[in-house]
C-alpha cells in the first residue's frame, strides 16, 4: 500500500503544472517507447514546453508503484491535464488521432 508521503508527493506534483506526465526517463531522454510516443504527441500539439512537468519514475520507485494505485492504472506513462487523469499511451494516441489532444492542451500553447 502507498504511504501518505508518496500520495502527497503525487498529488502536489500533479497540481504543479497544467500538463503532467509520469514517464520512464525524461522528455529529452525517454527510456521507453510508450513514454517517448506520448512526449512526441504532446510536442506535436505545439503546446508550451514550460507548461509540462514530467517525473522520471525510474528514479522514484515509490512513485512508480504509487501512481498505479493512485489512478488504478497499471502501466506507465500516465498523462494528467489540469489535475485530471487522461490516460496512457493508447488513449493519448487515440486522442491525437481524433485531434482531441491538441484541443485538450490548446490553452497552453
Amino acid at each position, binding site marked *: 500500500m502507498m504511504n501518505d508521503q508518496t500520495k502527497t508527493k503525487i498529488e502536489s506534483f500533479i497540481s504543479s503544472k497544467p500538463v503532467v506526465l509520469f514517464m520512464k526517463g525524461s522528455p529529452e531522454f525517454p527510456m521507453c517507447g*510508450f513514454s517517448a510516443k506520448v512526449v512526441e504527441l504532446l510536442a506535436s500539439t505545439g503546446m508550451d514546453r514550460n507548461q509540462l512537468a514530467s517525473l522520471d519514475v525510474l528514479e522514484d520507485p515509490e512513485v512508480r508503484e504509487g501512481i*498505479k494505485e493512485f489512478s*488504478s*492504472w*497499471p*502501466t506507465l506513462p500516465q498523462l494528467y491535464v489540469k489535475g485530471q*487523469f*487522461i*490516460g*496512457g*499511451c*493508447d*488513449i493519448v494516441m*487515440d486522442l491525437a488521432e481524433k485531434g482531441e489532444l491538441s484541443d485538450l492542451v490548446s490553452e497552453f500553447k
Partner: protein
Amino acid sequence: MTPDELKIRLEALGPDTQVEVDDLTGTQNHYQATIESSVFEGKSMIQQHQMVYALVKEEMASNEVHALSLKTSVPKKG
C-alpha cells in the same frame, strides 16, 4: 501468460465479448488486445480500459504481462 490464457481471461468480461490477442514481440508479455463487448456500453475509454486491466491486475503487477495495449469497442447494433 500465453495468448490463449489471456484471451480466455478477457472473455470473462461478458457473454458477447469478442477478443483478439496479438503477441507483439513473441515473448508472451507484450500484448495487444482488441475487445468488443456490450459491457463497455456508456463507459468512457478510460473506464473500458480499467475494466480490462482489472482482469489481469496480478499479472501486470508482477510484470508477467509487461505491456497490454488495448482497443476496446461496443458491438454495433443491427
